[in-house]
């Protein structure tokens, strides 16, 4: 069945006939990228993509950013995409270039980030022969992309690339790979323009539904109006849907007066300064957000997917609530949690319709019940679950991030992270008022994401402040990207929360494995200041809490890439925490406001 694929008619309707003129394949590829509005390509050359690099050399419409590892190229494209709402673009060579990109592709798939990754391939006549630098890229990337293509005819290059961009950005966004054999890039072919206007959305099979069923929206809004203990639970889908979705969400929250929490991926959609904001929920979410999830009677999930980091033990997940689930991806519905009212559609459209209907029907929240519910939530908030104390000679990691927030909050600041405790503290202590300002690897949890992503953000926003809040272990996974930052004069700031441990691993070992710290100590760390300097960056170090502010201010004021090594308390744990397999109301808290210390391992079980 695979045999006759090469000459198949493409599924996208081309609205223009193929060009009269013949172009070389590599030129067609670049023309297609230009037409798709690509400004920057993150890539790394190699034998199979030399014809494309040659065409890149001959033009100056598209900028190429040379990364130092292909994983970094994909993360940079993710950073670019997530901070702009555009599709990120990657170009790598065959074999090792493609396999190096795999982690980034999976990361983009899990977090629904639109990326098109062009991979070189050996010439078609060598495919299957174990040729030099051959890998079955389409086979390897099938489960880690939204879709992928192998192009075997230069005449199909343009259409395929147009379709790749369409698939990447439509519906639930995701990564798409286009595998390009070298002979196809060197063959002559006709160019086809992308479908336009009404035809833009016409695709033979892939037509994600953006407009919800009216009956579903009506049922959802009616249920919301009847709620006594309502809660919005929002996710990355709102960010992906665009800034308008965030604005509408704010309006709906205002209109209903319902409290709101969000997943890690959704931070910034509703402002942290908003009075209905409960903070992030989930494994390291706030006490109030998790207890509200547990206790609500109507849950309104908009653009989140009931991930296990959010739900904890499914058996005990929000037992008394009726659930509304708004998602553009039908397969997210009833996957982990069965919901009463699924609404399939794009968040922006659904929110618009919800607001219109709420107003048209003159719905009113049950004020008395809502007041009692908000009072209950305020009581939970009184617990001050993120409380910590900055005392003694060691910098508390929370303090470092809180000061970073205070000293950068009045600028246009983008925060990326690596993965670990620092990531969770960043989510807890950095307060986001706007969408698209927070970039983290949520679904895959990829250490090494933050620095290349920061590079991608800085490419798109040259004047913004971009900070990668990092761990000393994670940063080593893609440290080579400092070199990229230097080459392109990207003044990114790497803010290392250096606790000398793989802190999150150490924390689990402490809590779950009898404090046997197997291989979680960051042995033989480099001197990050010297390392920064060796790369041509500015290196800084701080270990005195009194010098924290000065250091941060200095870091910000330098218009060059900076690595700031913040030596913090190595033993601090990240709380609250819902241990794996536990319910929301079985959260472990740190010490509470009264200053009651954690006694040994006898952590307060709530």
């Amino acid at each position: 069945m695979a045999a006759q694929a090469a000459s198949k008619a493409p599924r996208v309707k081309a609205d223009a006939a193929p060009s009269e003129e013949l172009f070389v394949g590599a030129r067609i590829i670049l023309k297609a990228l230009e037409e798709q509005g690509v400004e920057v390509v993150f890539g790394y050359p190699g034998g199979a993509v030399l014809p494309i690099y040659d065409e890149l050399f001959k033009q100056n419409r598209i900028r190429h950013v040379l990364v130092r590892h292909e994983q970094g190229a994909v993360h940079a494209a993710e950073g670019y995409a997530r901070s702009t709402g555009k599709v990120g673009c990657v170009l790598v060579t065959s074999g090792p270039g493609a396999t190096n990109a795999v982690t980034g592709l999976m990361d983009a798939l899990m977090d629904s980030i639109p990326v098109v990754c062009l991979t070189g391939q050996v010439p078609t006549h060598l495919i299957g022969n174990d040729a030099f630098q051959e890998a079955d890229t389409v086979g390897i990337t099938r489960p880690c992309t939204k879709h992928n293509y192998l192009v075997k005819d230069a005449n199909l290059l343009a259409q395929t690339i147009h379709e790749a961009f369409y698939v990447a950005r439509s519906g639930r966004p995701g990564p798409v790979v286009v595998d390009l054999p070298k002979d196809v890039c060197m063959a002559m072919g006709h160019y086809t323009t992308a479908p336009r206007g009404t035809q833009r959305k016409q695709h033979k099979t892939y037509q994600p539904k953006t407009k919800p069923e009216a009956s579903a929206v009506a049922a959802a809004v009616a249920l919301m109006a009847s709620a006594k203990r309502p809660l919005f639970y929002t996710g990355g889908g709102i960010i992906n849907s665009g800034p308008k979705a965030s604005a509408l969400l704010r309006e709906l929250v205002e209109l209903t007066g319902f409290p709101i929490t969000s997943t890690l991926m959704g931070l910034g959609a509703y402002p942290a300064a908003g009075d209905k904001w409960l903070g992030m929920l989930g494994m390291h979410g706030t006490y109030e957000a998790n207890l509200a999830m547990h206790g609500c009677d109507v849950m309104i999930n908009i653009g989140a997917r009931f991930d296990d980091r959010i739900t904890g033990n499914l058996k005990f997940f929000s037992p008394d609530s009726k659930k509304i689930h708004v998602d553009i991806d039908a397969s997210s519905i009833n996957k982990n949690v069965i919901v009463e009212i699924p609404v399939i559609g794009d968040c922006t459209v659904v929110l618009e319709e919800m607001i219109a209907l709420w107003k048209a029907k003159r719905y009113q929240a049950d004020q008395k019940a809502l007041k009692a519910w908000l009072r209950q939530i305020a009581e939970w908030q009184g617990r001050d679950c993120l409380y910590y104390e900055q005392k003694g000679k060691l910098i508390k990691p929370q303090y470092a991030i809180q000061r970073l927030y205070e000293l950068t909050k009045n600028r246009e600041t983008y925060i990326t992270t690596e993965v670990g405790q620092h990531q969770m503290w960043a989510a807890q202590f950095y307060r986001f008022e706007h969408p698209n300002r927070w970039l983290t690897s949520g679904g895959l949890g990829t250490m090494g994401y933050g620095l290349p992503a920061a590079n991608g953000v800085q490419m798109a926003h040259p004047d913004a402040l971009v900070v990668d809040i990092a761990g000393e272990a994670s940063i080593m996974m893609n440290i080579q990207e400092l070199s990229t930052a230097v080459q392109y004069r990207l003044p990114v700031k790497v803010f290392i929360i250096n606790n000398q441990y793989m802190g999150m691993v150490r924390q689990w070992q402490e809590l779950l494995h009898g404090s046997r710290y197997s291989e979680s100590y960051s042995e033989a760390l480099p001197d990050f200041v010297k390392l920064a300097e060796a790369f041509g960056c500015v290196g800084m170090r701080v270990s005195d809490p009194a010098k924290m502010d000065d250091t941060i201010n200095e870091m910000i004021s330098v218009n060059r890439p900076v690595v700031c090594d913040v030596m913090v308390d190595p033993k601090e744990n990240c709380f609250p925490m819902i241990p794996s397999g536990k319910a929301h109301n079985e959260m472990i808290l740190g010490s509470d406001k009264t200053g009651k210390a954690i006694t040994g391992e006898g952590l307060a079980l709530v």
Partner: protein
Amino acid sequence: MAKKAAKKAAPKTAPKTSAPAKRAKAEDQSSNLYEGMVPVARLKDKDTYRHIVSILVDNEAGVLARVIGMIAGRGYNIESLTVCEVDRERGLSRINLATLGTHQIIEQVKAQLGRLVPVHVVRDLTDDGPSVARELALVKVGGVGDKRVEALRIGDIFRANVVDSSTQSFVFEVVGTTEKVDAFIELMKPLGLVEVSRTGVAAIARGAAGIEKK
């Protein structure tokens, strides 16, 4: 991957195929992914039974790998699988998939398949109304004397054709439901069953509407 599961459990799962008709009464309606409304109670139903899912796909490189990879990658089981081009002009193939699962799991399988780019239509032929399903098996039986005669006689009862014979053996071609083919094979065991080759299930909905019409 697409091997036939051992059929010992057949009697246990078979009666369930009539279940959907009984369950059609709707409680607690909620809108469904494809066909309107699915009752929540039904999604929570823990009954596992065999479903036949038909998928219309573009006949392009790797489409089968995509479908199977998705199912295997998400840990769903495949009892049988048939695939062939059904519309040359439009380049469409039809994949029939027999799988065990609860209603919710099949809804998931459908939704996951539905979002693959080359997939046109996904239908659960078991839960979506009456359908017919057939498979074909080639069954080789060796033996002489009485056993040989008995094999021929049973073949007759099952309307199996003899498509090859030697002095030592027959090859029967038997067509029917999975249960019928199972039964025939079971009866051939004591009569010198040598080997079996089965196509897996091909299925189609009853009535005038085609798979692309709702």
